[in-house]
């Protein structure tokens, strides 16, 4: 701990910040002023330039043009170390703590001037003195692994203060927290701003957090600053309008038809989780034809394992899966016969072979089909023709069918996977985080396709960490926590606060 660091919030201003990658302009003449001690929100769709802007500020990128003022003086930031020296710090979406070390150890080793030999007695005393000055605290002597997500995020923020940062960039800091945890963490951050200790620039997607905690907001769209101002003067619809511009948003697709017979059932299912230490225990889960069952939960509570069980990647130790009344082991033949389709999360990493071409990836489901029979010799021509049709029908933007699918943007990879999985009869559809990391227009289009599958009679199991998505799409909502289904309600009767409590295991 170096107590002689200058303290107190500092203001930061970008002037005509521009960043080009080849012919592509990611950031176009952006000037934003963030007053000392303010809580400033940065809104924008995916790809709007938010990350590029903060990476320029932190020295990860070198802006093509434009400059930055820190505390009123022109500042040059050739690398993150220079940004740190100016008092700028960043908290990332995902944790950067070492799980096996204690909070105290994490804090001390994060210091650039940590000595070769650490005098723990002195450090502990310094940390205690530091903690006394903080408005909130975390247990210092437990391994970080044992801390809840909210505690970890608080520790990330404490770490920045411990390192003497006076201007904090928070990159979607609440995406891994429950609503209650998010409110608590942001409340503390807000208090630090009000006390004049730090200035905050927070990247977020959540209007509610902007209204509840921020003083001012700036909105980016396609690399340009398109609006902003005092939060008190703006409504959610104002902000949404700025973010979206004149892009047409698809109306939420109407819900038609009624739920039919059960198509997917899990009974007394038991499996190990990824760590191998805990178990997944699902006593009864049923999805009927023509309904969407949403599974809400914070990531890491067994959703990934449930997806693996349903796709046959994780063996069941007990219990059974039934599809349309018959036992199901997720073989290719069964999935085909019973029309079961999957949309795993992060499609590029879980549903595609990144280096294979767009046409080949679209062919994964049908390459061995020849009419109603199977084939031994591959038909490249048929695969290409089919891919060309589907690319057109699902509006996949691809430079070429021969391009590796990894060259496509996230939204287009998901469109290509949807084209593959939603073509033909679909009776059971298992989905995990379908819109993670996609921009707003892709999101509404993909949700509309999911709803259309439901309306056409598919039974849909939707796992999502995005509660809004669950509430928008689901007919019934289940909450998963610690590998178990802990709560069930209808979408109409659900309320986010109650769901949040169940998600956090507090109910």
């Amino acid at each position: 701990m170096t107590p002689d660091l200058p303290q107190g919030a500092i203001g930061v201003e970008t002037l005509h910040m521009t960043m080009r990658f080849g012919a592509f302009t990611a950031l176009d003449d952006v000037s934003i002023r963030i007053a000392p001690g303010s809580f400033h929100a940065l809104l924008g769709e995916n790809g709007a330039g938010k990350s590029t802007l903060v990476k320029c500020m932190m020295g990860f990128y070198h802006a093509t043009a434009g400059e930055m003022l820190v505390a009123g003086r022109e500042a040059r930031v050739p690398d993150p170390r220079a940004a740190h020296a100016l008092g700028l710090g960043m908290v990332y979406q995902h944790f950067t703590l070492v799980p096996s070390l204690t909070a105290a150890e994490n804090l001390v080793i994060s210091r650039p001037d940590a000595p070769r030999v650490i005098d723990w007695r002195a450090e502990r005393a310094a940390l205690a003195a530091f903690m006394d000055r903080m408005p909130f605290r975390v247990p210092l002597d437990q391994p970080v692994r044992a801390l809840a997500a909210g505690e970890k995020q608080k520790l990330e923020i404490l770490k920045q203060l411990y390192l003497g940062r006076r201007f904090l960039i928070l990159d979607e800091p609440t995406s891994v927290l429950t609503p209650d945890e998010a409110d608590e963490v942001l409340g503390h951050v807000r208090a630090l701003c009000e006390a004049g200790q730090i200035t905050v620039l927070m990247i977020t997607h959540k209007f509610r957090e902007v209204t509840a905690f921020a003083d001012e907001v700036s909105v980016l769209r396609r690399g340009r600053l398109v609006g902003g101002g005092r939060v008190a003067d703006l409504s959610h619809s104002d902000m949404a309008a700025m973010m979206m511009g004149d892009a047409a948003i698809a109306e939420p697709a109407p819900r038609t038809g009624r739920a039919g017979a059960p198509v997917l059932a899990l009974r007394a299912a038991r499996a190990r989780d990824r760590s191998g230490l805990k178990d997944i225990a699902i006593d009864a889960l049923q999805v009927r034809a023509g309904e969407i069952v949403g599974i809400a939960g914070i990531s890491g509570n067994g959703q990934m394992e449930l997806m693996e069980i349903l796709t046959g990647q994780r063996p069941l130790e007990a219990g059974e899966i039934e599809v349309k009344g018959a036992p199901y082991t997720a073989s290719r033949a069964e999935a085909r016969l019973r029309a079961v389709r999957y949309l795993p999360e992060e499609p590029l990493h879980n549903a595609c072979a990144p280096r294979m071409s767009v046409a080949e990836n679209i062919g994964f489901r049908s390459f061995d089909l020849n009419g109603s029979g199977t084939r031994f010799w591959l038909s490249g021509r048929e695969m290409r023709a089919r891919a060309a049709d589907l690319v057109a029908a699902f509006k996949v933007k691809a430079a070429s069918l021969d391009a590796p699918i990894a060259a496509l943007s996230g939204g287009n990879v998901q469109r290509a996977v949807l084209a593959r999985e939603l073509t033909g009869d679909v009776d059971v559809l298992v989905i995990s985080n379908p819109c993670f990391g996609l921009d707003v227009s892709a999101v509404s289009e993909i949700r509309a396709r999911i709803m259309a599958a439901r309306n056409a009679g598919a039974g849909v199991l939707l796992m999502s960490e995005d509660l809004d998505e669950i509430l928008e799409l689901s007919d019934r909502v289940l909450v998963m926590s610690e590998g178990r289904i802990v709560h069930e309600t209808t979408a109409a009767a659900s309320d986010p606060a109650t769901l949040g409590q169940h998600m956090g295991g507090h109910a």
Partner: protein
Amino acid sequence: MTDHGISGPATGAPLRAMLARVARRAEAVVLPLAALMAGFAVFSLFLLMQGKSPAEFFSLVYKAGFGTAFSWQNTLSRTAPLLFAALCVALPARLGLVVIGGEGAIVLGGLAAGALGVSLAGAPAAVALPLMALAACVVGGLWIGSVGALRYLRGVNETIASLLLAYIAIALMNHLVEGPLRDPASLNKPSTAPLADALRVGDMPGWDVHWGLLAGIAGCVLAWALIDRTTWGFAARIAGGNVRAAQVQGLPVGRLILGFTALGGAFAGLAGFFEVAAVHGSANASLASGYGYTGILIAFLARHNPLAIIPVAILLAGFEASSGLVQRRMDLPDATTLVLQGFVFVAILISETLYGRLRIFAPERWSTR
């Protein structure tokens, strides 16, 4: 960020599409060639440091490996086992497995063929030779297939398992040819009993090169057809490209791994069969002469494309064929060829990191400025 559908300019679109196709394919040719050249360049420095002339080295290699009809025959005779050994690396590699223990399957395949040949001594060649070849395939297939099984069932690293199994195979062969299977007449070099003349594989008519070369080329073509033209090969490529995607598609990943590793091992076993039946005439320690390891380099240089294995194997066989002459004329030790192979291999591994990164090979990243 890359969310911009590139629509080429209206004029010259066919030309652009053709260029794009050429550029996409060129990557797999240009990068290995560049790596080969880089390996040669570093090796040349190595020669210069010893006061030897790289120009002399390469011209000797050319002369002894490719310069005359005789040197071509020498080169092509050595090509056959290299083709099979490279397939033993390339087939599992398409599933994302790095199997480097083909030497073990060559040795045991050769031993099986040699031992069976001895007991089949009076049988007509038309029956005995296919049986010997089959035995070599089965033993080689089981050996490398067990590597695939360990990988799939128990998660054992296939690279290390196959390498360690190769040492076991060589020790096993030495044990058997020095013990139970030893021909008492083989004094200096313990061997199995020599094969009857009728059970020797001869040369192709008009050539001084045995039939193994043709069999190896046929094996490469078959392997190419399997990978590139059949649904099994496509399924294997999916599993190699992303095993999670293959599992979500319900593809039988375990069976693919077993099948492709066993097939690779069977090809390596065939290399042993031809070494015994066409070259040595009995199974002995000469089976472990490093073809399995040179095959690794060939498969990587060929980007695990069975058709590309053919020219690459011929090139590497030429280097091996010339090593005697190079030793004598330039007074360089035997290990020089290994040093060259090592430099080329390191260059190849470095070039592996460049795939997909160079804009010139990725038309979708060509700017339309």
